[in-house]
């Protein structure tokens, strides 16, 4: 039965047949080229570019040999534990947020514990004599680090801005509108330029922030503004009666927001929030432009290495695959959360 309809819709008319032939041609060329380049003609073993001299396809040795650099940047081998510990703690802290019983603990850990951990082992404030260079952190770790804090802090800032814009007094509302629209109206690149070039001027003498902190400042401002608009959409979706009912029950404004309105608002827009995460995750690659070696920056730097010239394609394809896996996974999660697709 299925085959019959399939064949009919593919070759039922002249137009359909034409479309089928074109699609099949595209698919055929694509599959054969990709298979030839990625697998059949590719070189997987070896340890230097010598191994790839005869290759007709990709040189995966390049990725294999540079993998550690892609993951950790310039970090020394004995310091990997810092990155590993931080990422495992972040994963644990985030997963605590998904269970009702551990939610409060998760919030404390994410907003207080993790920044402290970052200060302790990434910024290395407490034992500076061990001499880990904080600018050495890079690669996929840096991407995850920036994305984690950017996404996390976007939440409280976005919520405050959304509430201010929706129901604050006039002055606060104007301020929130101004703040949100300015960050949303300019490209992230100018925000990063601003935070890396301009922010140092606004600090009192003697106070210096690292490049990473400044980039994070820009990203948090930027993502907070986008999050504010998403949450505002959710607030508008909550029926007006909810607020009145909660005040009739004796809850004050703060309580009714905290216990009644915000949870519903966030639930409504949870797919949009996840989509926001995905774009922010993709946007973190922009820190490469202000000279930081995030995942893309590390790949980019490796392709410029004179020992490995001419393997840019392999590097970018590998990076694309990694980003694709992360983003596609998140987008699947977001379509599962979508209330429309459930019903």
């Amino acid at each position, binding site marked *: 039965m299925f085959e019959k309809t*399939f064949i009919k*819709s*593919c070759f039922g008319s002249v137009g*359909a047949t034409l*479309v*089928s032939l074109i*699609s*099949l041609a*595209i*698919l055929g060329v694509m599959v054969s080229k990709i298979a030839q380049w990625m697998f059949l003609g590719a070189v997987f073993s070896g340890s230097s570019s010598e191994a790839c001299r005869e290759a007709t396809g990709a040189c995966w040795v390049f990725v294999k040999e540079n993998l550690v650099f892609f993951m950790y940047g310039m970090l020394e081998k004995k310091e990997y534990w810092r990155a590993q510990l931080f990422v495992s703690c972040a994963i644990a802290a985030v997963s605590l947020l998904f269970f009702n019983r551990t939610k409060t603990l998760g919030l404390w850990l994410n907003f207080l514990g993790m920044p402290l951990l970052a200060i302790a082992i990434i910024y290395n404030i407490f034992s500076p004599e061990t001499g880990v260079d904080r600018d050495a952190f890079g690669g996929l770790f840096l991407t995850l680090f920036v994305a984690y804090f950017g996404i996390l802090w976007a939440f409280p800032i976005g919520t405050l801005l959304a509430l201010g814009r929706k129901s604050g*007094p*006039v*002055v*606060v509302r104007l*301020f929130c509108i101004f703040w949100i*629209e*300015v960050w949303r*109206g*300019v*490209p*992230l*690149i*100018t925000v990063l*330029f*601003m935070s890396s*070039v*301009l922010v*140092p*001027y*606004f*600090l*009192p*003498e003697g106070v210096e922030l690292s490049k990473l902190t400044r980039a994070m400042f820009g990203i948090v401002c930027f993502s907070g503004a986008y999050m504010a608009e998403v949450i505002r959409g959710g607030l508008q979706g909550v029926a007006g009666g909810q607020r009145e009912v909660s005040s009739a029950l004796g809850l004050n404004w703060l309580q009714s927001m905290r216990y009644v309105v915000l949870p519903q608002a966030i639930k409504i827009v949870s797919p949009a929030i996840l989509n926001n995460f*995905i774009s922010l995750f*993709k*946007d973190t*690659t*922009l820190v*490469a*432009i202000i000279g930081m070696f995030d995942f*893309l920056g590390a790949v*980019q730097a490796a*392709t410029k290495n004179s020992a490995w010239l*001419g393997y*840019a*394609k392999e590097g*970018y*394809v590998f*990076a*694309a695959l990694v*980003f*694709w896996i992360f*983003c*596609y996974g998140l*987008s699947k999660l977001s379509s599962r959360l979508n209330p429309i697709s459930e019903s």
Partner: protein
Amino acid sequence: MKRPRKVHIKQSILWQLVFVGMVIAAASYGLHNALVNLEARGISRGFEFLKVTAGFEVVQALISFGEGSTYLRAFLVGLLNTVYVSVLAIVGSLILGFLVGFARFFAHPLSRGLAKMWIGGIRNIPLLLQIFFIYFAVLQSLPEPRDSLQFGNLIFLNNRGVFFPWIVNGEWVRPVLEGFDFVGGNVVIPELIALALGLTCYTSAFVGELVYASLKSVDKGLWEASRSLGLSHFQALRLVILPESLKVLIPPLTNQFLNVFKNSSLAAAIGYPDLVAVFAGTVLNQTGQAMEVISITMMVYLLISLLISIAMNYFNSRLARVRRHV
């Protein structure tokens, strides 16, 4: 016990004053620091620098830009280049996006699958990565000018761009290889190709998804009604379904246009001379006047974003008005 309304208002005004005071205090503290720091580093202030001669060259300028041109002129060159690449990418992504959207909409499993693959693949890879790929992995690995790929001895493709014949003083002039580079004719620089192509592909996936969603949002009854009025499948699509779907499509499409415009600033990463690369890059480095340069850049982006929103809102309201008369 409810408090009297007057007390409430007074209290509210008090809090608002406190809020304003805090914002002003923070801003003036920052400004004070900035003034002290600028003084200490000997950086001049004000917008006088715009009149100073720039003394650098730009690889692509839509208006004449030479050694004697000022920083203001450099700003205009950058701005025009930004608008130029944005317009190219918007037109390209509309064409490609509609193609993808229709392919996804048709009841044809293969075209639908291809469109889904395109959307799912492109959307989940960072734009900067795509631009890097096109620029560094594809365009930079093209042959040197002397080994150019040729198309009928008229068009030449190499790692310095596409060279093609162009009218100079009312005559067609062909590009000719002289030494290491081509002379005569016209050239599209690889930075422009990479940026425009990257933006087009990336945005087309989003536009395609929007086109598909808007076509799907049209009531099925309209298809049946127009078919029973004797319209062919194509006529129904062109005269009924497409106009109806535009109503849903225009507002989110505006956002995509805004995104293209903002994303064109990724030019700075590959050296396409857009507003950010020329003004917030070269000019900033030469003059050191970070405050002025970055605030001008941000203001320009804000202003143009605003203009695009207003234009699209106007277009949208006109569309809605026309509909009401029918």
